[in-house]
């Protein structure tokens, strides 16, 4: 670990016990991970590979069976803040109260929390919607509020658990670009969980590829595409090559489906 490490995980292992059969299930097997300050790292893998579980362990919602994680202490408050996938806003709170909620949890008085939350609403592009209720917002807008809430607590590390999974394809791409804009302005460390290869490659400095059963890291790929990245970088040959590399890595873990079509060539 060095001076600019934000997160360091060693030997993280997660075991479950099946309630009925009492068999042990291995969700995560021995994951090591390092995040440097300001990095945008994607955790990519199929469902069941433990990526969301790992995120929850970092956030403290779950406790690992073994292994240690170290988070660089921030100047104040929590070191990490989570952006959830869905059902993420409280329907009975206005957008502003929702964004302020993270601060309220940290002990900030409500009025002060609301004051601090207001600029973030502008940052994520929700100006004018501060007093609306979630049911009046579209899916994309709700996720922006979700993001704003995590940003408001000013934690160094942002944990994002497939935040765009419930959005339609168009909104999703817009949100990806938005996220990069906000990340550049906010200068955070991000650990972004996703199962979409193009999303991982587009957004991150590094893609950590995981496989399932048991969940484990199989590769760590540096994405050396220049920043700032526009959405049309997804069409460039370098981008496609990264996608292909990752695709093959993942496919190799599933012998039955990969060999069926022979060598995969992506169009």
């Amino acid at each position: 670990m060095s001076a600019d490490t934000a997160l360091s995980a060693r030997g993280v292992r997660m075991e479950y016990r099946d309630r009925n059969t009492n068999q042990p299930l291995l969700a995560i097997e021995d994951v090591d991970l390092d995040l440097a300050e300001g990095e945008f790292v994607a955790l990519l893998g199929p469902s069941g590979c433990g990526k969301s579980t790992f995120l929850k362990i970092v956030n403290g919602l779950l406790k690992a069976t073994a292994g240690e994680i170290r988070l660089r202490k921030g100047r104040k408050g929590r070191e990490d803040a989570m952006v959830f996938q869905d059902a993420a806003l409280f329907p009975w709170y206005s957008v502003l109260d929702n964004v302020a909620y993270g601060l309220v949890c940290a002990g900030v008085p409500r009025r002060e929390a609301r004051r601090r939350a207001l600029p973030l609403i502008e940052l994520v592009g929700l100006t004018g919607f501060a007093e609306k209720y979630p049911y009046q917002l579209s899916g994309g807008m709700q996720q922006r509020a979700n993001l704003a809430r995590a940003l408001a607590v000013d934690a160094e590390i942002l944990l994002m658990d497939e935040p765009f999974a419930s959005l339609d394809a168009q909104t999703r791409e817009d949100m990806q670009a938005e996220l990069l804009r906000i990340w550049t302005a906010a200068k955070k460390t991000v650990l972004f969980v996703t199962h979409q290869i193009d999303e991982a490659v587009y957004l991150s400095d590094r893609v950590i590829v995981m496989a399932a059963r048991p969940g484990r890291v199989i590769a760590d790929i540096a994405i050396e595409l220049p920043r700032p990245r526009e959405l049309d970088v997804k069409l460039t040959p370098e981008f496609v090559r990264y996608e292909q590399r990752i695709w093959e890595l993942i496919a190799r873990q599933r012998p039955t489906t990969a060999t069926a079509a022979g060598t995969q060539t992506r169009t």
Partner: protein
Amino acid sequence: MARWRYAKAPAVRRSGPPRRNVPDRGDDRGGIVYGPGVTAATFRTILPRVRRRRSPLSRWYRRNERTVLGVAGVVAFFAAWQVGSDAGLIERFFFSSPGAVLAAAVGEVQVPRFWNDVRISALELGVGSFLSLVTAVPLGIAIGWYRRVSLTLDPWLNFLQALPRVALIPLAVLWVGLGWDMKATIAFLGGFVSIIVPTVEGVRTVDQQLLDVARSFRASERRIFTSLVIPGTLPFIVTGIRLAVGRVLAGVIIAEFYAQTEGLGVLIAKAEASLQSDRMLFGVLIFTLVGIVLTEAVGYVERYLQRWRPSLDVEEGLT
């Protein structure tokens, strides 16, 4: 597609290319090696969970906790009742005890008069409920189908629903006297209102998507009625029946108390008059059991019908 302009921040956030994940294992299994200028205090450590061994008994208990505690709750209730009664803490005079109620039960079922009472109460319940069902459902469907009719009758239906039907008992007495037909009338009124209101509601509301499908296939009004509205209303009707069960039962009980002629309710009232709380509670118990059984049965049918339907916004209560 909109092009996003990025802020003028530096394109790369650190000097040099992005770093690979190099786990510095050091020389032990997973030890952390600290670089220059960094100590353990700079970081917050998240530790794994401490596992505890659990005995097999403890494991069994955890799996069956719900049943164990549920049974314990019921047992505790009756035990406390019995013990309290025996110890004199609970006034036996008023509240009797489980044992005494049971004994009274055994005594009562051997007396023919008891079965006569049961027969009459059942008659009142049965006739009233049946009539209410066969009148409320067709009428409710008819009212709900014709918009103007349902709007016109709305105030009256709302009024009847808000009104406690038992308040109509003296009126029913004025109409038909104190016999079993009065109680059947009360049962009828209770059931009728409980069923007709949800039925009208059910006919008036229908899934918008299905309506569009039917219209796009140029279905006739009649076809829409039989294939869309009727099946769609069925869960509402069944809900109405479930609500009716409680209302009808309460109606019959009060009517019998009021009239004091025949029926199980009279058993209860007379037992109270002669200060026999064990017989009285036995009567209450019968009504309770009947109520539970009927409600559960209807509830079962209702849940079965609702497997395809997401939810119902109908409930008992005022308007």
